[in-house]
């Protein structure tokens, strides 16, 4: 039998009741698809089941890459390809002049870490020029907080009552669709 699923927007005027609603929804086993807010809300990630982002790890790897590239570049240009004796400071080996190479090594590390991470962030969130606005309701960039639910038919009434009980200003039905059973993945939590 095909499963009917409903899309529901719970709109709040404040983040505190919205967080309360998230908590209650999760306790009753309802999966929260996403939350849209005008500003970052601290402590919401574990509440709605968002794992910690690994962008910082990426930055570290990009930084190491930058460090390696700068070292390789300066070694090649100053030591391998055309060693020079500048001001009595010969470049016969990399370690001879390594203090002079520290500033550029550092700058290159920062350059690659910062730009690599920024690019990864933009692409991971698909924030690119010309991308369509991702918020389902334009008021969420102003002063509204929106819980986006993608529910099975039998959960809908329960979710709706939780949203209302927690003080949602609006509970909007944004249509429904049916999925073949083979595509339905049961929530594990």
């Amino acid at each position, binding site marked *: 039998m095909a499963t009917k699923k409903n899309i529901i927007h719970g709109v709040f005027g404040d983040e505190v009741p919205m967080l309360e609603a998230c908590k209650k929804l999760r306790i009753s086993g309802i999966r929260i698809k996403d939350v849209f807010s005008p500003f970052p809300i601290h402590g919401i990630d574990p509440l709605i089941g968002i794992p910690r982002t690994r962008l910082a790890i990426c930055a570290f790897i990009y930084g190491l890459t930058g460090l390696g590239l700068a070292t390789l570049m300066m070694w090649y240009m100053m030591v391998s390809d055309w060693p020079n004796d500048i001001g009595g400071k010969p470049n016969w080996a990399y370690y001879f*002049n390594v203090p002079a190479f520290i500033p550029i090594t550092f700058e290159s590390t920062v350059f690659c870490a910062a730009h690599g991470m920024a690019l990864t962030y933009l692409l991971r969130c698909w924030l690119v020029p010309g991308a369509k*606005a991702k*918020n389902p309701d334009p008021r969420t960039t102003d002063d509204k907080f929106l819980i986006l639910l993608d529910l099975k038919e039998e959960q809908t009434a329960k979710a709706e009552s939780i949203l209302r009980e927690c003080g949602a200003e609006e509970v909007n039905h944004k249509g429904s669709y049916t999925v073949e059973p083979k595509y339905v993945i049961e929530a594990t939590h």
Partner: protein
Amino acid sequence: MHAESEIRIPLIIGNKTYRQITDDIIAPIEGKAARGWYTLTTIAALCFLWGIGCLAYTIGVGIGSWGSNNGVDWAWDITNFVWWIGIGHAGTLISAVLLLFRQRWRMAINRSAEAMTIFAVMCAAIFVLLHTGRPWLDYMLFPLPNQFGSLWPNFNSPLLWDVFAVSTYFTVSLVFWYIGLIPDFGMIRDRVIKPWQKKMYGLLSFGWGGSARHWSRFEEVSLVLAGLSTPLVFSVHSIVSFDFATSVIPGWHTTIFPPYFVAGAVFSGFAMVLTLMLVARKIYKLEAYLTVKHIEYMNIVIIVTGSIVGVAYLTELFVAWYSGVEWEQYAFLNRATGPLAWSYWIMMGCNVVSPQLFWIKKIRTSVVATFILSIVVNIGMWFERFVIIVTTLCRTYVPSSWNTYTPSFIDVGIFVGTIGMFGTFFLLFSRYFPVIAQAELKTILKTSGEAQKKAVAAHAHH
């Protein structure tokens, strides 16, 4: 949510709601510009045009048209370069260092301070690119074999470190600024009605939606970028100071230069942020967000950095005397009593004496006094670089190579031009971009808003 002490002065004045913050920040974009904006933009654009003219003339006939001469081969060009780079430092300091220290008052000023950084570094870049003499060969600053032969640029040279430092600094600041702007552009896109505005801000917002996942990544990126920018900002001005400190010119060859330059940079940067923000505050009526308390906090940073600079000046004098090196001693004697002594005393007056006035609470909480002193500080900081560069180069080792210096009409023109460019860009920014990071500001409304704090206090006393 973190509670904030009751006795802390609120950072957002009045009974504001999230909606009102949106309304106030979008007002200059949605509404008509004030008359003052048009006047200032016209003046700035005219200065900019004059600068472009002088720039074109320099490119046409060469830097012989400048006042620089044999001996004083670095003059206004490098003075202006260091001055502008220094001004740029406040932006990164405010947005990165104060973010790491969790200083909430930065949220009212970080956006415009970052914009200021970017424009200031652009102004600085003009001077470095031009002072090479043949700017069409500036690609040789990058690690390419010279003239595409096989000789590489010299990586032992601080001048090359500077190329890497300044380009990293510029691009990283730009990215930091833009990533912060994306959510605010999203807000503007969802608010504006005119089709061209909707389209423009739609493009600029990169499709931002404010999903919890995106916010979580946004915060991580901001934190890591702040962590990267903090050592970066210290490295950039240290490297700028190496341009001098690693030379063998008396008066330049000192180990105190890096910290002294960094403190001076932050000092002049904060002064410039104050100059600009006090104007923006007035034109865009941002008094509720940029309160007297913010001004006071910034003035305190000015006292601290100004005092560090003062101590550095005195240390330099002491070390010159104590070193027993005659040339070093003469360099400082010449600065204080030589033919260009007036510039030394302007520097001392503006940088050492004037910021001490901020110890008086009445002065540091007065908008007018702060505005005047912020300009005085920037004049002083310009003269600091002038003293270091020109006064020193006028009298180096051999008296037969002693010289004097007068700027040419073109020198003045290019400098005024960069001020015009800076002003034009900043005015355009303040009209079309969100001047205050409103998304971030909304996060502190509940803890630091005046009405909200009062409500919490009233509740606690029951």
